[in-house]
């Protein structure tokens, strides 16, 4: 079995492009060109150059000695938190802005929830001098004022999504509507491995640099390319897709995807899509999503805005359904505790999204000789207010 997308963008039964005809020309242009463009030497050269000198790659693979001692196993952290803009998101936006240039687009749109993808998109648009419009739910704009300010400083226009629940899924709807209204000159930079084909595969390929580096760094440190486990948090699933990518077909490597249980899977306030979702269509992709029995998409909840998405990328739906991936959901409380522990033991304040991945160390026992790589997808600066409120700091 392959765990990558087939040429129609299916991962097993999941994926595809369930889009209205208005979006067909845009996605078709991208579908016909994305692999070829990514393989062009000039594209690769510029992408690699920007990842190195602008983003700061390769990010370190750090052996977390004190954390390893506490859990009696070998824990490595893939330090995506050290990327420019503070998270893995920029790997994808660098790739997509170069793609947009190759396709001759002169206007960029994006959706954002907490603002991380919006900032990463505004950043690369500033870098390239391209017009940028970021859609963000009205409620998120109020909750994430510093990121809104960052996007504005970077020259982007932040447009509030006023429809529906006024959060990430509605921002995504608004971005898609913008694309319908501007089909020729605009490229839509989706921030995760979601949306219609070819987005999930394209974004996964741009993020795959994470596991590519893990392989060579682990070889250097441990003499082997493959860890026993790779752990990553999953909202839409882009950091996880990148961390898993080169291990998907290596079944010896355990893949652990960590979802946000929110206040508990059965609390009604959760974002644990694998546990609560059913097969359906969201944002142009057939995947697992949280919905009413009637097929209306429901609003998820997590303390972490980056995991607060009612669906999951089709790659992850397939990893879950096929049993290739182990899916664990972590509550707000356990994630917050894990974030604090990492701060105290290793001097690294993680993004709350990433804290969910660390909480797995409490849930699951690893052997002393196991090599466990945790993708530290982002840093916690953006979450300070949440940490302060939660721990009364």
């Amino acid at each position: 079995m392959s765990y990558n997308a087939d040429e129609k963008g299916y991962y097993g039964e999941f994926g595809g492009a369930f889009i209205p005809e208005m979006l067909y020309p845009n996605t078709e242009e991208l579908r016909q060109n994305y692999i070829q463009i990514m393989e062009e030497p000039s594209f690769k050269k510029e992408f690699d150059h920007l990842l190195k000198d602008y983003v700061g790659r390769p990010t370190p693979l750090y052996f977390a000695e004190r954390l390893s001692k506490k859990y009696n196993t070998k824990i490595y952290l893939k330090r995506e938190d050290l990327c420019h803009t503070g998270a893995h998101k920029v790997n994808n936006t660098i790739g997509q802005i170069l793609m947009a240039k190759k396709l001759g687009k002169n206007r960029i749109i994006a959706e954002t929830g907490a603002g991380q993808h919006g900032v990463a998109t505004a950043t690369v648009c500033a870098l390239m001098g391209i017009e940028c419009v970021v859609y963000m739910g009205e409620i998120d704009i109020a909750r994430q004022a510093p990121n809104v300010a960052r996007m504005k400083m970077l020259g982007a226009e932040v447009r509030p999504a006023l429809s529906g629940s006024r959060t990430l899924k509605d921002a995504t709807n608004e971005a898609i509507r913008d694309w319908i209204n501007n089909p020729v000159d605009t490229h839509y930079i989706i921030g995760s491995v979601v949306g219609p084909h070819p987005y999930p595969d394209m974004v996964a390929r741009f993020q795959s640099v994470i596991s590519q580096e893990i392989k060579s760094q682990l070889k250097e440190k441990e003499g082997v390319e493959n860890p026993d486990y790779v752990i990553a948090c999953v909202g839409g699933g882009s950091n996880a897709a990148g961390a898993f990518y080169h291990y998907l077909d290596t079944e010896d490597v355990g893949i652990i995807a960590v979802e946000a249980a929110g206040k508990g899977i059965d609390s009604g306030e959760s974002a644990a899509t694998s546990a609560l979702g059913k097969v359906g269509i969201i944002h142009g992709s057939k995947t697992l999503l949280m919905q009413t029995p009637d097929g209306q998409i429901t609003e998820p909840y997590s303390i972490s805005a980056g995991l607060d998405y009612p669906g999951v990328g089709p790659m992850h739906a397939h990893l879950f359904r096929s049993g290739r991936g182990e899916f664990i959901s972590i509550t707000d409380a356990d994630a917050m505790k894990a974030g604090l522990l990492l701060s105290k033991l290793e001097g690294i304040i993680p993004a709350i999204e990433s804290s969910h991945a660390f909480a797995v160390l409490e849930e699951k026992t690893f052997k002393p000789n196991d090599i466990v790589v945790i993708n530290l997808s982002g840093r916690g600066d953006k979450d300070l207010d949440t940490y302060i409120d939660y721990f009364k700091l």
Partner: protein
Amino acid sequence: MNRIHQKLKEDKKILSIYFTAGYPELNDTVNIIQDLEKNGVDLIEIGLPFSDPLADGPTIQESSTAALKNGMNTELLFEQLKDIRKSVSIPLIIMGYFNPVFQYGVEAFCKRCKEIGIDGLILPDLPLDVYLQDYEATFKKYGLINIFLITPQTSDERIRKIDDASNGFIYMVSSASTTGATSGFGSEQQAYFERIAALDLNNPQIVGFGINNAETFNQATRTTSGAIIGSAFIKHLNQFGIEGIPDFIKTIR
């Protein structure tokens, strides 16, 4: 014969009206359909509301949100429509997004449509290739006509494919936009209308998006078989209620 085919044979420009089921009030559905027929409308698209209608503009999005809040759902819509054929004889089409249909079960959904007397479906996010591969046989089994969209950006080659897969009419989206976004047709639209007319397709075309009065209706139907009004009708409903339906239709023709 399917009522859509019959209607298309008549020597007139078709006026089709879209409305969102369960809006403005939950139980308005049947009254709206009856009043539209009484006032000379030729075809009705009954909108099955969806939480995330990404091809629609703010008007239809808001009416959908309100309808869901009122308690509209798939089963209830079927329940409301179960006796509709006792009083209404014009073609009825259900328009909605694919996920609610998928959750109901495509076969079960089509079966209920046939029992009620629904003539066709418009599901903008059910793509052509998936329809042909997975669902065409089911639609045909229950005598339902699937209506595809084309836009100014759709290539001639793809329009031909869509024409081949269609057996009723083609929903011609007037401009690159979501519903309710444009007003008036410029030279760009005229050129598009003429380009499509020149293709001499097997299926007649009915134009939607951007039609809100007699002028745009006449422009849109010069080279086509009819036009669809959605957002403008919903705005009117919102303002004047069901009682305002005769006045609204009079402004169109």
